[in-house]
């Protein structure tokens, strides 16, 4: 019997990809529903702490589109993602192209090219495994995305990381 991956795992399968894996104690139908019903998605698709999700529109079918926006409760700043569904195979697979919209955050990231996100859902013994592979247009964009971490607000991103490293390395 396989071990339950009850904490998200992140790996870098190639220079341009990020792979996120996680198991859930729920049926695949339910996990699928939580990923495709916008009313449910906005309850867990959290932005950075202190950000709410005022816009969550999703038309989950092949050729459909989606729009997600987060807003800082404090500054009112907005950023988001939007994209389109290239392949939707309920309840097993979602393949979508995702564009980052930096909104009020600015930043130097190239946002012209989408990330291609391949999400698979499999169920075994009442456990649903999610495997999401995100392929970015370049290594630089992949690295920038991972670096934002987004744990403490995306604005901080690189600056915070640079500071952390400077402290550790004494330069």
């Amino acid at each position, binding site marked *: 019997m396989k071990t339950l991956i009850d904490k998200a795992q992140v790996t870098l399968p190639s220079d341009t990809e990020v792979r996120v894996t996680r198991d859930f104690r729920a049926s695949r139908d339910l996990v699928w529903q*939580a990923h495709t019903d916008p009313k449910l998605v906005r309850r867990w698709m959290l932005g950075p702490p202190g950000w709410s999700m005022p816009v969550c529109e999703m038309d989950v079918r092949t050729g459909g589109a989606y729009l997600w926006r987060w807003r800082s409760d404090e500054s009112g700043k907005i950023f988001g993602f939007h994209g389109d569904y290239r392949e939707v195979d309920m309840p097993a697979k979602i393949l979508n192209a995702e564009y980052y919209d930096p909104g009020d955050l600015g930043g130097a990231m190239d946002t012209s090219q989408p990330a291609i996100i391949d999400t698979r859902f499999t169920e075994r013994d009442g456990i649903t495994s999610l495997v999401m592979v995100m392929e970015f247009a370049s290594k630089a964009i992949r690295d920038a995305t991972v*670096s934002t971490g987004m*744990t403490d607000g995306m604005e901080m991103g690189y600056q915070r*990381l640079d500071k952390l490293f400077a402290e550790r*390395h004494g330069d």
Partner: protein
Amino acid sequence: MTPSQRLDATFAALADPTRRAILARLAQGEASVAELAEPFEMSQPAISKHLKVLEKAGLISTAQSAQRRPRKIEAAPLADANAWIEGYRKFWERRYSALDELLGQLQVAPPKSKRIRH
């Protein structure tokens, strides 16, 4: 090197299975080039090449004092590489913890509107 260049060097150095095996060996304690070459079907110069890549990435260092110049592992770049991904991992885990909770609620009271039919 900037922090992102440093991470590039770390990941590039880790991208090779021989170098990962060398690091695994050095994680158990320092070793000379000859000792490191032993488990591999490789010449000492070939191993030295890998050691140079690892050293350039700051993943190992050479003790200059001793005659056999043993190599030793340096933990900081690996810790940075972990920290780099860890922020992103935590970001997703925060979402998935919320999803766990939502799934729990849905199992108690499944929403009636959008049943999935096969």
